[in-house]
């Protein structure tokens, strides 16, 4: 089901939490709502689900305004950050709950519960009590229970943040597989940029109750609309420079760009530079080498200024701290933002 938010504003206890949020999620799409803790992600999910009433704006489901639908009729199901499994019920009873609530026959919900437990790889756990399960298992029960509600839109509130790394990877795969199987329109709330970039059709980057950019992972990363957005994905150094007649000039380099004249900041991410004997940028030395398993992170400093760049090279590393190096520029990956 297509979900559309139009100018949603929310105030809680007199404080503005969301400010005119608009967003459309296509039917069956998987998007991430990415933002730092406290920026209003959970509030937005609760607003979509009708738990919080917006002070302005509307929620549309398949183009129909849902403002007057009470939470239990919206079908916008949240997997809460704290899971909220019912402690007085078994695993099977938890999963059957939404089906019972919509009046499913006993044999139907028993069969579906078994199926769903299989889907989340918890066969045979029907009669377990919630307190007898591990964190990762509980996460999967919560997911199965949400699916049992036949969601129009599935809202996942930081579902992986409480898991350790291995489990997290498994859960991500499981969620993606189920989302594809059921073709459910899904919003994943996360503060993990890698997670957002790797899992989503689109990413909505949120800050202080606003959506700064909503785009595909490639676009939002490579053509961020502002330095704030670019910095959120990779905080990198920048150099001020000037564009005149289609040429950008700064202290260490100059290259052709397709921008109007003016003062710009060039953001030099690790992917925009590389160490190269014949590179045009000189006077940098290796100030730090950090081994990371799959590669090395190299920190480069300019002798005469405080400018500090970072790049990654694969093993083996032929440099030592203190070596002078030349740097090449991957012009297409340099982000330019107008300074005014």
């Amino acid at each position: 089901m297509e979900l559309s938010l139009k100018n949603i504003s929310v105030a809680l206890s007199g404080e503005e939490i969301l400010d005119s949020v608009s967003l459309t999620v296509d039917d069956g799409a998987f998007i991430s709502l990415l933002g730092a803790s406290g920026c209003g992600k959970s509030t937005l999910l609760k607003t979509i689900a009708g738990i919080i009433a917006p002070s302005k704006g509307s929620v549309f489901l398949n183009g129909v305004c849902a403002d007057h639908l009470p939470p239990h009729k919206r079908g916008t199901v949240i997997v809460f950050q704290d899971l909220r499994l019912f402690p007085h019920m078994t695993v099977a009873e938890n999963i059957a709950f939404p089906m019972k609530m919509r009046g499913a026959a006993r044999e139907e919900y028993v069969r579906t519960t078994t199926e769903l437990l299989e889907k989340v790889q918890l066969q045979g756990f029907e009669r377990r009590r919630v307190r007898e399960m591990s964190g990762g298992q509980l996460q999967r029960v919560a997911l199965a229970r949400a699916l049992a509600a036949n969601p129009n839109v599935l809202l996942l509130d930081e579902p992986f943040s409480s898991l350790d790394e291995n489990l997290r990877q498994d859960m991500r795969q499981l969620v993606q597989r189920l989302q594809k199987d059921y073709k459910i329109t899904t919003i994943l709330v996360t503060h993990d940029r890698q997670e957002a970039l790797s899992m989503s059709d689109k990413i909505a980057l949120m800050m202080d109750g606003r959506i700064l950019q909503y785009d595909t992972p490639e676009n939002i990363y490579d053509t961020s609309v502002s330095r704030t957005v670019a910095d959120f994905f990779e905080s990198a150094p920048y150099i001020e420079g000037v564009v005149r007649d289609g040429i950008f000039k700064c202290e260490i380099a100059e290259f052709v760009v397709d921008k109007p004249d003016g003062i710009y900041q060039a953001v030099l991410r690790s992917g925009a530079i590389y160490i190269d004997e014949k590179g045009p940028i000189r006077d940098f030395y290796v100030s730090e080498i950090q081994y990371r398993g799959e590669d090395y992170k190299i920190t480069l400093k300019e002798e005469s200024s405080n400018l500090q760049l970072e790049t990654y090279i694969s093993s083996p590393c032929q440099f030592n701290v203190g070596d002078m190096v030349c740097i090449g520029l991957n012009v297409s990956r340099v982000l330019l933002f107008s300074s005014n």
Partner: protein
Amino acid sequence: MRPYLLLAPLILLGILFLLGVGNALIQSLGYIPAFGMTDLTLEYYKQVFSNPTLIASVKVSLVIAVVSSVLAAIFGVLLCAALVMNGYVRDRIVQAIKIPILIPHTIVALFMIMFLSQNGLLARILFHMGLITAQDGFPMLLYDTNHIGIILAYLWKEIPFVAYFVLALMTSINSTLGEAAENLGASGIRSFFHITLPLCMPAVNKALLIIFAFSFGAYELPFLLGATIPKALPVQAYVEYIHPDLRHRAYAMAMNGVMLLITLGISGMYYLLSRKTERMNGEQRG
């Protein structure tokens, strides 16, 4: 040493209390040397359960305790649910429901007499509205074997008590698990009966036990509002205690013994319930 020193007042009070209880128990077994009674016997307990007057007293107290505590639990939960659902949790209304909890039982008894006796306010209002034509057209609510006056007085005090006792837990469950249930398709009412209420039951039961124990053993309301015959157990015990024949004190003490046993049983249940609540809260956090 210091912790024990700080505990000293408590220990002292505890000792005094236990001495009193022990003394009463010994007397209930017929051992009161001051009156020349030195044989230990269960005779007085047997009497409590075989003498018609005393049996009637036990019954009266049980009826009052059961009806007041069950009704207070039911209506208290409803009141609490109404407060929670309407978001009055931090409201003046919550302050208002504390008032009946604070007012002493004796005062409540006076209210009841003012409002509900056959020449009370309510009867007068009905009379002036022409709904009743004489004093005895108004039903006998006080001093009657239906115990309605006593039960109403307890309800007036204990319904707010239950609501207040359960409020914090219900608020927190409603805003987490109740919210989740609605999100999964349960209407507000079904979410309440399937999720919020069952999870609040340990607290409700605790409140119910407190009220039961209190209304079973309390003296003021049955004394001020109760029927002449049969009397509630604590009132009857008092009658036996001040009986001109001092040897009747053993009966009084046996009745106290019965009340003590029942109260102890309830304390035991309360303890078990508390442990259960703790376990469940632990789970929710875990």
